[in-house]
């Protein structure tokens, strides 16, 4: 009994190992495991029969059986790894796909380039403590011109060709218009708040103007205004310099030159050095060879404007500036024609 049991264990082990060597997939391995090592498997049955042996034999054969069991388990494990490694070695060939086939289309939506650039501009100023406010697109002459030191009949009105709303008031005047700039919010904001004021005003503007590659009758503007005790032209320079560096790179240089807007005095125009050619290319498309690119108009708020909203002009000073997001976008992205912005051609919009 002992002898035959020992022998059958050894034979079983040999048979099992021979079979195991021939197996090549995990299903077959599982069947093999069930057959030899499972609860009703061959080796298990033999070991279960040990209970009929006496204790000495039982120990001896039991030890043999356990060794056989662990041998089989180890070999199973080893074979399992071999098979999985062999399969992995082949997986490239077995499961190859054509990765050059197009992916499954997913719908994407983008923001209009103007929206993106307005956001960039306002973010830069918000980081410097400016708050965003917005104003009406249809305005009174009073806010668009009068309060900005541009009275009726002032020759400077020619700087803003105006689209007037067909509305005549009781005095027979036509006082309603499409705002020609976002500057009317200067007066509106100051009328409703005492200093300190630090706001930025993005929005649409309108001009009676023929369109060409650089002119649109409908466009955006971002206006800025800071008024408090002790605000100086030096602060204006610093604020706009910081803005230029945020939008166009930290190595940017800025330049100010004298310019005229009736609601500021002194008035300036800010240019940045050409980020494309750094002034080295006399045929540069961006700066036209000058090395400088005009970015915006600015200046110290005219005392007439401050007085108009009831501020003490001896005590308070401030600066204002205004810039065109389309122009900034054109510079940043190399867009050659402003008319692309509002014709809504998908081929244009999808590039941003």
């Amino acid at each position: 009994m002992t002898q035959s049991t020992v022998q059958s264990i050894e034979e079983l082990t040999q048979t099992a190992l021979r079979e195991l060597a021939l197996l090549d997939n995990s299903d077959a391995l599982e069947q093999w495991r069930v057959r030899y090592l499972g609860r009703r498997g061959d080796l298990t049955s033999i070991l279960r029969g040990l209970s009929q042996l006496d204790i000495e034999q039982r120990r001896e054969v039991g030890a043999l059986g356990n060794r056989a069991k662990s041998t089989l388990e180890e070999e199973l494990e080893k074979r399992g790894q071999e098979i999985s490694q062999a399969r992995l070695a082949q997986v490239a060939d077995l499961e190859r796909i054509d990765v050059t086939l197009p992916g499954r289309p997913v719908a994407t939506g983008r923001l209009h380039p103007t929206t993106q650039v307005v956001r960039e501009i306002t973010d830069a100023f918000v980081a410097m403590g400016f708050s965003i406010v917005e104003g009406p697109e249809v305005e009174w002459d009073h806010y668009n011109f009068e309060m900005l030191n541009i009275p009726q009949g002032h020759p400077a009105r020619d700087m803003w060709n105006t689209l007037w709303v067909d509305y005549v008031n009781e005095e027979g005047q036509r006082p309603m218009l499409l705002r020609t700039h976002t500057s009317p919010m200067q007066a509106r904001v100051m009328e409703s708040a005492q200093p300190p004021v630090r706001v930025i005003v993005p929005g649409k503007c309108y001009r009676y103007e023929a369109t060409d590659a650089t002119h649109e009758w409908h466009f955006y503007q971002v206006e800025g205004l800071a008024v408090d005790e002790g605000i100086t032209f030096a602060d204006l320079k610093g604020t706009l310099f910081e803005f230029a560096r945020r939008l166009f790179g930290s190595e940017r240089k800025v330049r100010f030159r004298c310019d005229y807007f009736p609601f500021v005095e002194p008035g300036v125009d800010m240019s940045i050095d050409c980020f494309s050619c750094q002034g080295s290319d006399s045929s540069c498309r961006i700066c036209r060879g000058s090395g400088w690119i005009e970015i915006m108009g600015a200046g110290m708020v005219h005392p007439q404007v401050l007085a108009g909203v009831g501020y003490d002009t001896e005590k308070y000073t401030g600066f204002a500036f205004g810039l065109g997001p389309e122009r900034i976008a054109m510079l940043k992205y190399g867009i050659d024609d402003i008319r692309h912005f509002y014709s809504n051609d998908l081929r244009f919009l999808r590039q941003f």
Partner: protein
Amino acid sequence: MQIPLSWLREYVDIDLPAHELAHRLTMAGVEVGEVTELGGWENCCVGQVMEVNPHPNADSLRLCRVNPGDDSEMEVVCGAPNVAAGQKICFARVGARLYNTHSERHETLKAARIRGVVSEGMICSELELGLGDGHEGIVVLSDDAPIGMALDDYLGDTILDLEVTPNRLDCFSVLGVAHEIGALTGKPVWVPEVRYQEDGPPITGQATVSVADPDLCPRYTASLIQGLKIGPSPQWLQDRLARAGLRPISNVVDVTNYVMLEFNQPLHAFDLDKVRDKTIIVRRAAAGEALETLDGVERELNTEVLVIADSRDPVGLGGVIGGANSEIGPSTTSVLLESATFNSYNNRRTADTFRLHTDASQRFEKGLRPELAPIALRRATQLIQEVAGGVIAQGIYDIYAGSDEPAPRVTLTLRRLKQILGMDVSVDQVEAVFQSLEFDTERLDETTVSVAPPYWRSDINIEEDLIEEVVRIIGYDNVPTTMLSTPIPYRQPAPMTELKARVRAALASVGLQETISYPLVSLEDLERVNCFAERSAPLRVANPMSAGHDHLRPTLLASLLGTLSYNEGHNEGPFRFFEQARVFLPRPNQLPDEREVAAGVISGLRSEPSWLVDNGPLDFFDVKGMLTSALALLGLTPSWEPAPGEENPALHPGRAANLVCSGHKIGVLGELHPSIAERFDLRYRPVTVFEIYLDDLLTLPVGSGRNFRSLTRFPSAHRDVALVVPEDVPAGKVQDILDRHRLVEKVELFDVYAGENLQPGMKSLAFHVYFQSSERTLTADEVNRTLDGLLRVLQREVGATLRD
């Protein structure tokens, strides 16, 4: 303004290269747009025609012997009709690069045989030299032109094209620019000296001048030149005007233009013999009066128009344009010369009324100082006599309402200068700046300077103007660069700005492309989208630029459909557009109500053609899915209520839903009305559109947005339920009944079916229903009991039965 450098050099030394000068002017606020060089004429010089003979082989050509200055004589073939012996001309030797009028490009001149005769050079026309368009004849130089002088030295010039801002009236004149250059370079400026003999009888006996309306004409000066002869101006005068962009006309008129360009003061010359009773009256026009102006147009005048009249009729529009009835002509011998100051506001209104923005009105409207009038009058009187001869009457008329008060002084304190600029400037530096600008400067104390600006600077009125003068002359680079150091003011955040940004981001994130279109549309566009059923007439623009853009839009729909139709022209889609903008709703005697709306239009195939995707057209439910997701990003779960057809005339009456949150309508979604799709000739159907009203979103009660719900740790159980309901029961209603039970965590509709195996008039709705409690694990029993209860409610409320 075109300013020739050669003219500027009459008044100020310029030793800077032209481009450097242009840069300095630009930085100081007088922008130079372009610098044009006249010249570059190598191998060209001043020559003299010694002899003109007929060409042996051609009637239209002449053989000329030309002296190029070295006493050699060259034989030149010339076809110009105006060539004559003795003339000083522009001679081009072989090797010169000139514009060839036949090939229409610049070429090097070669010795050529013309009809059998060798021409050793060329006598040039304006066109060949690039001086102008004239090619009818050769350029004839003035008699004093030095033979042999290189043409570049004699005719070469540089033209500065100035873009003058409206405040810098002074820079509309050559002398004004010279003063500016003097200030920038430290060079002295010479103003032409005026000296002439008044040999005629007193002006008062020859002509009468009076001003009836001094409020519109504060100063009127006049002189009289008699016995002069009208003719062409001398060449130098014609050249100067031409280079400054004015067309020479005749000697007297040319002088008035010349002095206007020189001193800025517009002048007018009347033929005194055409002035009735030799009487000039400056007055408002009478009602019903008319005047034919120099441009040949008969103009009806009104009583706000200032005219220069003779004893009976107007002979000119004051400060704008002269009248045809007193125009200088070839036979004129007596000229009454006017140099006056007109009210700028009235002048501008007159120019506006007649749409006559002349060189004169553009100066007067900006406010010329009265001191200038007599200065310019004398200068022009002298020049007229120089170029047209005649005798100058003794004395001038000078009718000046104001007295000779000194110009108002403006005071600058160093304290204010520092308050504005943020830097210290010494009193010496400030004084030096003002002196360089030729301001009459007085130091009141060590921190205060008072100035009287000269007559050409009418833009200096307040202390800040002086501060600008200081900073633009010392240079903006010298001002320090500092960051704002005042406290950041608190401002109530603007919720709409934030909401608009979030709505845009949400709509883009569900695959919609943002567009921005013109807020002005045409009535036809609005009619095409049936937008008038509920809204009053939109606001109209009084002076639209085109008929297509003349009304402020009360809806975004027309624009979006326009965008769709435009893109269908060159794109296969899919088309998923939205726009976030304002619509304008008129209010009587107020600014319109500007309401923020987000709207979209969606059509085409669900995705771009793909080997993977089974494609169908984008429809109502695609867009409802997009909106559901987009609104969920904003924390909103609206209910979708069938919208009555009459409420939305632009939408398909059976396929439109109102979006309702907490009882507020926040938007609408629907298929475009088929008749509108027809009108826009749209390629793909269906077209789905939506609108979201942002102002209404802002009024939603607090708490209807995002609210955190704790994550339950107990498992959910789910049951599939197929319900049979009458066809007219909205699925949303069934879903709502399921949803509202407190143990129901989520309901998903996964199948809708009608047809075989169902009674006619019935449909089947199949749901996954998820049950969950935040307090415990639900037992199967509890779940089943809850479901049974729900089924009873469904049976009662909508007649639902379980499908077998």
